[in-house]
């Protein structure tokens, strides 16, 4: 693989789930890469492992899942690191700041007992605390100089300086619980609110001040997802991972969100990993596509290439099965194999019309068959 300005590259990722029914070989050596500023679509049927792959980047795979081996290389300020080798503290500093993730059902993924403001300010204070405290400090100092400050100003200044210097200060945390002392936080609160309003406006929300004070269940699906996106982008991440964010929404709302994502893409030149089962969305949004089947990436190419010249039998079958007016309805024969005792060799072998004897024995490797077009299939032998 040519690693030209790769922001993210996943190599040979193997993930297993140890369940009561057996060991589920969820990811069988997944390979893909994402360049800076591009949107990579990850498509596949339910159960193909696309969600697990997206969760693995931030090591959020829930138990009984275990990331057995592989590499997840990400380029941050200091260069390329293998996220799988980093400690919890490093990962925490990355999550929400360098890499953000949004999920499927927005109202299930927002905490029902906290307001929109509470939840967005949480991530702001987590990663942009210094900047916001500094702004508040500057605001106080400006007021003090211009004589607009009140008697509490020096106290507030001391307060923010402490918060700025020692974010984990227990004293501050404790004091903030006392209602009267919380007034000292006023200016910081103002900064935060301002920031949130700005974010929500960016998302195309009509009435940010009102929405800020609402609870998740009061929002419609589309609004909730916008809040989620706002929260994810609040700290300016380099990479956004979107795990089927429009799947559960109304078609019209889906369109709105897709438009929003497109806008944001253009504005911020974001790098996005977009997981979906909807080929239509992929055609709309993505530059490159990774097609997944039964825990493997079977084809990886430009979106045009995939649609015009699908190489892998599964991709072909997938495209053929898209219902078109005037054409007979075609589906792929057979069912997705159980991943507890996956078939040996290529996992598509029992449904593949091109299968040969080799496919039953040996698993093919992902090779570059044409320029920037990778396929994992014995039909295309190639060097590595």
């Amino acid at each position, binding site marked *: 693989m040519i690693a030209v300005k790769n922001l993210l590259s996943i190599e040979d990722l193997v993930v297993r789930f140890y369940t009561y029914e057996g060991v589920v070989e969820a990811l069988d050596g997944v390979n893909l890469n994402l360049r800076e500023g591009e949107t990579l679509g990850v498509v596949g049927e339910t159960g193909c492992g696309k969600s697990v792959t997206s969760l693995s980047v*931030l090591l*959020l795979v*829930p138990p009984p899942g275990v990331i057995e081996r592989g590499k997840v290389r990400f380029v941050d300020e200091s260069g390329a690191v293998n996220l799988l080798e980093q400690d919890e503290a490093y*990962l*925490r*500093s*990355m*999550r*929400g*700041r360098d890499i*953000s*993730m949004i*999920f*499927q*059902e927005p109202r*299930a*993924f*927002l*905490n*029902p*007992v*906290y307001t929109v403001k509470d939840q967005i300010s*949480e*991530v702001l204070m*987590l*990663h942009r605390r210094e900047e916001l405290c500094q702004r508040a400090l500057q605001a106080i100092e400006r007021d003090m100089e211009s004589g607009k400050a009140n008697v509490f100003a020096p106290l507030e200044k001391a307060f923010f300086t402490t918060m700025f210097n020692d974010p984990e200060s227990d004293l501050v945390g404790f004091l903030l619980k006392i209602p009267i002392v919380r007034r000292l936080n006023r200016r910081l609160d103002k900064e935060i609110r301002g920031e949130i309003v700005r974010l929500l406006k960016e998302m195309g929300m009509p009435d940010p001040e009102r929405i800020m004070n609402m*609870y998740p*269940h*009061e929002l419609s699906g589309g609004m909730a997802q916008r809040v*989620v996106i706002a*929260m994810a982008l609040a700290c300016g991440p380099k990479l956004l991972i979107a795990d089927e964010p429009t799947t559960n929404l109304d078609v019209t709302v889906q369109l709105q969100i897709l438009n929003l994502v497109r806008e944001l893409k253009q504005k911020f030149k974001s790098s996005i990993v977009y997981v979906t089962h909807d080929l239509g969305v992929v055609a709309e949004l993505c530059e490159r596509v990774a097609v997944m089947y039964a825990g493997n990436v079977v084809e990886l190419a430009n979106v045009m290439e995939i649609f015009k010249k699908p190489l892998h039998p599964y991709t072909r079958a997938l495209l053929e099965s898209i219902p078109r007016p005037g054409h007979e309805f075609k589906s792929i024969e057979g069912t997705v194999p159980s991943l507890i005792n996956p078939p040996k060799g290529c996992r598509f072998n029992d449904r593949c019309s091109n299968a040969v004897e080799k496919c039953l024995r040996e698993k093919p490797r992902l090779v570059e068959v044409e320029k920037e077009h990778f396929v994992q299939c014995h039909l295309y032998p190639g060097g590595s």
Partner: protein
Amino acid sequence: MGLAAYIIRRLLLVVPTLIGVSLLVFAVSQMVDVNIRAMLYVTNEKMLDRIDWVISKYGLNDPFYLQYGRWLGEVLKGNLGWSKGPGANSPVWEALITRIPATFEITLFSAPVIILLGIYLGVQSAVHRDKIIDHITRTVSIIGWSLPSFWLGILLLSVFFGLLPWFPPRRLGSAAETFVNSRNFVKYTGLYTIDGLLNGKAWISIDALRHLVLPIIVLTTIQIALIVRVMRSSMLEALGKGYIVTAKAKGLSKDKVINKHARRNALIPVITLSGLLVAGMMNGLVITETVFAFPGIGNFAAQAAIQVDLPAVLGFALFSGIIFVFANLFVDILYAYIDPRIRLG
């Protein structure tokens, strides 16, 4: 619907429930053979001979609804009947009222212990699921739940009063008892722990506390299992929800995720349960107060049962039923207040 509308609607529901409660208590009293019921009205020997006359005089064979109506009228006037037994020949209501402060004091001190300790253990159990702390907590709380309360009380008394002179039974020692009933002591609240301080006599408060220790231990040991169990499963459920993943994806530390996000949501059913727990502590109190000779309404009920004093038992049952209905009401309102989904939904 707003919170106010919800409260009003809930309040309205209370009325039929209260009627139902009173009906049930009355129905139980009607189960008793009419002759025995007549005995309650007998005040002298002559009446004993003329039971039939007593029965017709007090309308004891009248249709159910007539008798119920009469009885209800009396109850609403505050007349819960007459207790010949533990109330020592006094109106049931009076007997109850004088004993409520003692029971309230026990409840006041044990409820927070049970609830807070239960929540803490439940969270720990859920977070460290299937590890040592989980097994120990669950085992200890099951053991507590399985212990007969009277046995535990007796054992504790044997050790901590019989062997070691630390925690005596009853409510106060004899010196304190004389003092609080003297003219030098003003019973502001009826709760000796507080009144002691209010009167400037700390030693009374300390004495009262000393007598409270064992009953509180008994009640906690037995009741905590319920809170731990519900908290644990509620916590496990919350931890499996989507917003937990979001919280982790934001970069929050494990502690924050547990305490700030999961626990808040998990507490909701536990809080409502706690309300019911407090009301349901009656069961435990009946036995516990008896074992420790604590002069509260639980003890009263127990003595009434032993002496087969039906008016007292029924009066107490009615009283508990009413308390429970209002506790339920309070808890429902609290629930609506805490969970924005109910409030604004």
